[in-house]
């Protein structure tokens, strides 16, 4: 039985809320403060909090390192792919208007920004978790007395 019961219970309540808040920051970024970068960092901090409380091995079971590796590159591909998609639709690189050229309320811009922010979220969250995994894996497990 681990001694950190309060930490475990409180963080179990908090971690889903932090992840949910990250998604709110991501998808509400068009209307309020926030966006892909902030959302990615907040999402990564939820995973890091999980790893701090329940151990790195548990966190690696929940979010395997291979996901992190794939997520990092997927984000860049989504962002770059949005630019290539606008090329194929006849516009300049990252000129989102060509997603919906006839729209009167700039729907193409909204779709483009949505896709691009999704890519940023993917890369930032995965890169932050990757850096944490890389550093965390090099330290051996500590007992409370080691501090």
């Amino acid at each position: 039985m681990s001694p950190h019961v309060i930490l475990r219970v409180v963080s179990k309540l908090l971690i889903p809320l932090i992840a949910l808040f990250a998604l709110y920051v991501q998808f509400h970024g068009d209307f309020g403060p926030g966006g892909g970068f902030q959302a990615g960092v907040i999402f990564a901090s939820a995973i890091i909090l999980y790893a701090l409380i329940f151990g790195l091995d548990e966190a690696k079971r929940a979010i395997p390192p291979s996901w992190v590796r794939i997520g990092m590159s997927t984000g860049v591909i989504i962002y770059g792919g949005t630019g290539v998609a606008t090329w194929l639709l006849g516009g300049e690189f990252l000129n989102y208007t060509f997603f919906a050229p006839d729209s009167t309320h700039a729907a193409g811009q909204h779709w483009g920004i949505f896709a691009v922010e999704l890519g940023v979220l993917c890369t930032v969250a995965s890169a932050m978790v990757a850096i944490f995994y890389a550093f965390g894996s090099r330290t051996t497990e500590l007992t409370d007395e080691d501090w």
Partner: protein
Amino acid sequence: MSNVPPTLILDIGLMAMLVVVAFSVVRLRSLFAIVMLQGVYSLLSAAWFVSLDAVDVAFTEAAVGAGISTVLMLGAMLLTEREAKPVPLQKQLGSLFIVTVTGMALFYAIGDMPAFGDAHSAANAYLGTDYIAATKTDIILPNVVTAVLASYRGFDTFGETVVIFMAGLGIVLLLGLNGHAGKWRAQPKGQDVSNSRGDKS
């Protein structure tokens, strides 16, 4: 006293706390306490950014500065000592000189800074007003920051995303995600070639 705006009192209080934390970081020897105080410093600056109406920056500062970098500094601290060695006074003179000169240069530059909230400062005139005006018709989003970041300055943000990707990639290549980096040995056809540096020993 009654006509002092409350935010000014808040700003001065937060700045004073930042100075106190900065001096304690310099004076302390315990690395654990220093890392924690750096987190406190980031949190205080985040609160200060909110009072300056820079909510986006405050967000990022709180998540990156107070959250993730504190954890990363703790991870780095675990790989080294727990206490910083005291530096002899002669070795501190050079750094004191650099810090003093930089501080004086910064104070000298204050005179050229625009007043806080000045509508005619370079950042608020010219291109900034163009973006704010064009967002209403081009992008039709309430948040101009998102419009500038993701659409008008989409190239920059793409570059930033690639920079973060490169940082993650570099860490993964150097350290590995499971701490196995440096222990892997190339063995084509059962021969150990990783240790041979051209000699046959």
